């Protein structure tokens, strides 16, 4: 126990409380002070053991220091700093406080050693992230945030039910490897799966993130899904279903990403695609695969954050984000264009960029363990991610046909955050050793071998060749003003109208019952009125003598009954 130190979430929580009371112009400072203070605190904590407290007889482990938690802790501090710098001009109380509570909850989540702490952090993330979606303050954002909250809170309930079953069964609230052998384990698995964007329950992500503010999306992208990856890696490593779920996650979104028009939504689909790789890695469960999964989570937060920042900058400067309305922005936003290309190269796993040194660990593990079909599908997804995130995003935003828009590069703080993110993507790609040293298991993997570099370059160049060929021949589908329906159609067109219809029927039934019951009810009321009303038997003023007489009669009756 390290005496005067705080658990990692505390600096952010304190900053969030301050954000509620300080004047607006000081709020952005808190966004930067919290991660810096938090990092110093975390560094000091790394020397000591854990932090514990007690609640209703259960031990709460607020700080569990092991390499897995620690890696995500460092990652979340970096992401919070980059997001804070990007949002440095934001004074909105709701956004700043939500962002800080959100980071605090995510840190509470990855350092929690027991189910109760985990649940509190889980719910904290739900509430704070809903605040970030709501902060766009459009009617659309309001209705989306309600659906978003419903899904997240539902996942929270599943987690709670599962955790209670497990605590009941084992008598311990410790959060370690769970497995899928019990109902409680399965419920928790599904809860984490919803947060991670498993296929079919992923639409909260693709629906909510693109309607949040330019800065909100940057925060949102970093925490919820990566916390879920952490939780799956902790609770369910080596569970085979994860391999197939992850493969589906890696493959299906790329089709959507090709035809989606909203460029931030394209990035959301590619986020699910990248999460798929991580989930496969966790499912494979070997030390190489798990290392790959968490390393890729680290790289993904940085390059996805960078890409969302560049698209956020475009949205911020132009008010537009649809591919069909953008194009030609490289002329007036050269710096943003360059930084976006760094992000695109990183997510595409170009040699010397971060994705190259992390994703390949997962691919290698899949091949080594003989999952050849999975490997072919992941390779397909790798080519696809280059196609839609690597080429489509920069191409349709900054090149393609000239939209006539001439926005300037964004403010210094946005450029600074993007430049820092891009620098980290390159640093990890060029010199992966420091990241490898943070991984939970010793790393015995060399990313830079001649065959690997040539193979990856071939894959990427020929994917680009396919794009060029399809563009030249006019086979490539143009960006169209449209929306693409996904599994959320079921929720919005079948389940919610069903619930609404059911509620309508119940209301009508209730109204009918009221009408049917009206006459007897009126009769009853008038009867009560006749007896108890001003003119009623019980409404009259009685003489004291009468009352004494009545009491005497009652007592007499009582005596007779008692003695007979």
């Amino acid at each position: 126990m390290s005496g005067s130190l705080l658990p990692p979430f505390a600096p952010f929580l304190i900053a969030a409380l301050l954000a509620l009371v300080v004047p607006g112009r000081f709020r952005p400072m808190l966004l930067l002070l919290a991660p810096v203070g938090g990092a110093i605190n975390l560094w000091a904590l790394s020397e000591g053991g854990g932090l514990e407290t007690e609640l209703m007889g259960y031990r709460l482990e607020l700080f569990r220091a092991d390499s897995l938690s620690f890696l995500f802790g460092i990652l979340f501090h970096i992401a919070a700093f980059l997001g804070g710098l990007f949002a440095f001009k934001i004074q909105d109380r709701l956004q700043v406080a939500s962002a800080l509570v959100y980071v605090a909850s995510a840190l509470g989540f990855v350092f929690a050693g027991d189910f109760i702490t985990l649940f509190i952090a889980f719910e904290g993330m739900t509430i704070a992230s809903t605040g970030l979606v709501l902060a766009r303050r459009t009617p659309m954002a309001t209705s989306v945030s309600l659906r978003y909250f419903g899904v997240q809170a539902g996942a929270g309930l599943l987690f709670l039910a599962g955790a209670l079953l497990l605590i009941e069964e084992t008598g311990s609230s410790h959060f370690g490897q769970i497995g899928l052998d019990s109902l409680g384990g399965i419920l928790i698995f599904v809860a984490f799966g919803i947060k991670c964007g498993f296929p079919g329950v992923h639409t909260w992500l693709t629906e909510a993130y693109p309607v949040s503010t330019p800065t909100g999306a940057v925060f949102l992208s970093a925490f919820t899904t990566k916390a879920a990856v952490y939780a799956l890696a902790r609770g369910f490593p080596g569970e085979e279903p994860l391999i197939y779920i992850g493969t589906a996650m890696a493959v299906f979104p790329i089709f959507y990403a090709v035809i989606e028009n909203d460029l931030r939504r394209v990035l959301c689909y590619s986020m699910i695609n990248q999460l798929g790789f991580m989930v496969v890695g966790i499912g494979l469960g070997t030390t190489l695969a798990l290392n790959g999964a968490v390393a890729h989570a680290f790289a993904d937060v940085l390059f996805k954050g960078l890409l969302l920042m560049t698209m956020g900058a475009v949205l911020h400067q132009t008010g537009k984000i649809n591919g069909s309305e953008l194009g030609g922005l490289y002329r007036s936003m050269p710096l943003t264009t360059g930084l976006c290309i760094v992000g695109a190269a990183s997510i595409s796993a170009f040699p010397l960029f971060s994705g190259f040194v992390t994703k390949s660990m997962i691919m290698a593990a899949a091949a080594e363990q003989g999952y050849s079909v999975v490997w072919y599908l992941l390779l397909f997804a790798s080519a696809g991610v280059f196609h839609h995130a690597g080429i489509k995003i920069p191409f349709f935003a900054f090149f393609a046909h000239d939209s006539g828009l001439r926005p300037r590069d964004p403010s210094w703080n946005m450029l600074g955050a993007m430049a820092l993110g891009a620098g980290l993507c390159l640093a990890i790609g060029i010199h992966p050793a420091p990241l490898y040293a943070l991984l939970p298991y010793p790393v015995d993997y060399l990313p830079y071998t001649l065959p690997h570099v040539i193979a990856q370059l071939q894959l990427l160049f020929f994917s680009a060749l396919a794009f060029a060929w399809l563009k030249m021949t006019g086979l490539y589908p143009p960006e169209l003003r449209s929306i693409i329906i996904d599994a959320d159609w079921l929720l919005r067109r079948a389940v919610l109208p069903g619930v609404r219809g059911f509620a309508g029927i119940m209301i009508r039934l209730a109204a009918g019952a009221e009408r049917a019951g009206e006459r007897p009810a009126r009769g009853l009321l008038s009867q009560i009125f006749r007896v108890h009303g001003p003119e009623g038997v019980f409404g009259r003023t009685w003489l004291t003598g009468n009352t004494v007489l009545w009491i005497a009669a009652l007592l007499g009756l009582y005596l007779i009954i008692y003695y007979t």
Partner: protein
Amino acid sequence: MINKEFRSQSRALKRAFWIFFTLCTGLLLADLLYDKHAILKPEAWFGFYGFYGFIACVVLVLVAKELRKLVMRKENYYDER
């Protein structure tokens, strides 16, 4: 096969395309120069990654184009009711 839009592009862009095609060819030929240590058998085939990447992307785009017919709606689809 090459459409009008491309033929009207600037000379600089066309030159960039030719450089790109040359690079692609170079990468393909590079496959002859080193020993592959493939885990899965097809990895050792000549130009496997290049051909796989090209075919994957063409299939991806053509399938996605068909998918559009199934899932694309007007922008106000959810507001109608």
